């Protein structure tokens, strides 16, 4: 088995009486894609938010690159090597595509807001940042869109920008929340190709509704319903699981 980069054990998140995520454990390994599927409201996005620090878990443990991160702030978790994309496009709409990614790339510089030198230098002349930005844009296939204002590019390109910003911080663990949502056929295919490329050297958790993409990409598959894991294993094992067939796949693949 390859290297374990993120391990979440017995995560639970309660909102009042509702357990949105209930005793869920996930392991993410380098060079492997772990897909999480489930119907709407199954708790997939909440799980992502727990791992990224957007929400603190009610209970459970998360270890990211050897550091305990449950309940830590999203900025600290990001700096420990986790990058996430959002289901609902979450970019800087008035900025250019280049500036969106450049801003994300700048965050991995050692920075203190109290250092006056950083008040006077020019942001667009940080060479390492520009290189990271260029690389991320190229990976996501957006190089030609650099000077365009992010609010004016197509929905599919905004999804690509989501990924480019996530990559710009050079994370080791990627949490991608429905990267294919709302994409056309051609765009989806190139995104699947990109995800396959990113698999190398990254540990990836993929939340996705597109079953063709999931079965094409996933090494490991976890099925959630009502906040709980009802099955986890290789795609073949999960596909054969009678509980899964009844609860989820059966209905969609009828």
């Amino acid at each position, binding site marked *: 088995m390859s290297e374990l980069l993120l391990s979440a054990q017995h995560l639970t998140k309660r909102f009042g009486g509702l357990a949105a995520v209930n005793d869920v454990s996930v392991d993410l390994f380098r060079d492997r894609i772990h897909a999480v599927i489930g119907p709407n409201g199954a708790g997939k996005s909440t799980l992502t938010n727990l791992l990224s620090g957007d929400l603190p878990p009610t209970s459970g443990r998360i270890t990211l690159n050897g550091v305990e991160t449950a309940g830590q702030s999203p900025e600290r978790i990001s700096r420990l090597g986790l990058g996430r994309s959002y289901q609902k496009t979450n970019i800087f709409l*008035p900025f250019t595509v280049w500036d969106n990614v450049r801003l994300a790339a700048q965050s991995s510089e050692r920075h203190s807001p109290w250092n006056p030198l950083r008040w006077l230098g020019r*942001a667009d002349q940080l060479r390492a940042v520009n290189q990271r930005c260029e690389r991320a844009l190229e990976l996501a296939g957006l190089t030609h869109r650099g000077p365009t204002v992010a609010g004016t590019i197509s929905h599919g390109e905004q999804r690509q920008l989501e990924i480019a910003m996530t990559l710009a911080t050079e994370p080791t663990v990627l949490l991608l929340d429905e990267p294919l949502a709302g994409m056309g056929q051609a765009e989806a295919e190139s995104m699947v190709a990109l995800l396959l490329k990113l698999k190398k050297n990254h540990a990836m958790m993929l939340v996705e509704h597109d079953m063709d993409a999931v079965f094409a990409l996933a090494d490991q598959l976890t099925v959630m319903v009502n906040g709980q894991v009802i099955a986890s294993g290789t795609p073949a094992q999960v596909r054969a699981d009678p509980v899964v067939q009844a609860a989820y796949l059966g209905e969609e693949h009828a």
Partner: protein
Amino acid sequence: MSSPKATLELLPKSMQVLLGTGALALAVFPFVPVEGSAFYLQMLSQMMILAIFAMSLDLLQGVTGMVSLGHAAYFGLAGYALAFLTPADTPISLWWALPASALGAGLAALIIGFFVVRTHGIYFIMVTMAFAQMVFFLFFDNKALGGSDGLYVNFRPDATLFGWTGIDLENKTTFYYFTLAVLVLVYAFLRRLLFSPFGRVLSGIRVNEHRMRAVGYGTFGYKLAAFTLAGSLAGVAGFLWAAQTGYVNPELMGFHMSAHAIMMVILGGMGNFAGAIVGAFAFEYVMHFFKDLTKHWQLLMGGFIVLVVVLAPRGLLGLGERLLGKKEH
């Protein structure tokens, strides 16, 4: 489109020329023989000081997206600092009184900021106002701090530098040029800051703070640093104001002062500091104009602001850009 409104950050060439012309006009004004020039020198000095104050607020309001309704507290505190530091019988050295006052205002902003920058939107507005009111009443109700009457600044600061007495701030024209120099310096500094790594993070926070945290920025520290810096720069303005007028009172840190600064920034156009300068001059000019017209000037002032917001949502500078932009095509 539902995207947040882009602020005008890069100034078009034509606008830069216009601003340069304005600065030049200020520089040659003392040589222009006009009737009552002493009065106008004082008035322009005050406008320039308010422009520095408005720029310091723009760092929060236009760049970082934090609308502070208590920014006058730091303006006033630095003014009081000068009043307290100046002995009864002799002037104090500018070269340590100015940094000390600005740092004092910055320290107050750091302490208050530590509590307020955790809040967002309407809560931020309310808490900044609440803290400013506390400072206001601390001085207003306290005889030892001057009370409601305020304090006199007996002498303008002494600018003697290593025995060189070339700058005499008691001279109106010299003070005018000194203020102009500070205005230009603060503007150049803030323009530089806007495109620095720090400035880019601040505008990222304005547009989407949530995503900034997700890509690894500790936004609290950035906002606190911006709040502290803005407080110190407001302090520079407040110091100059106290030196210029020779007098401080609690009104300097009052609600009206804070609200006027917000209106100046909106009037001129947010997020590029040039707008704050234009807004401060325009606001003061229109206010004096209406004051001469009627004692109900506030009614006219309100109408004027509403008109600008409706007709020029990006302020006078945004309006100018639109008009100039059309000509260039």
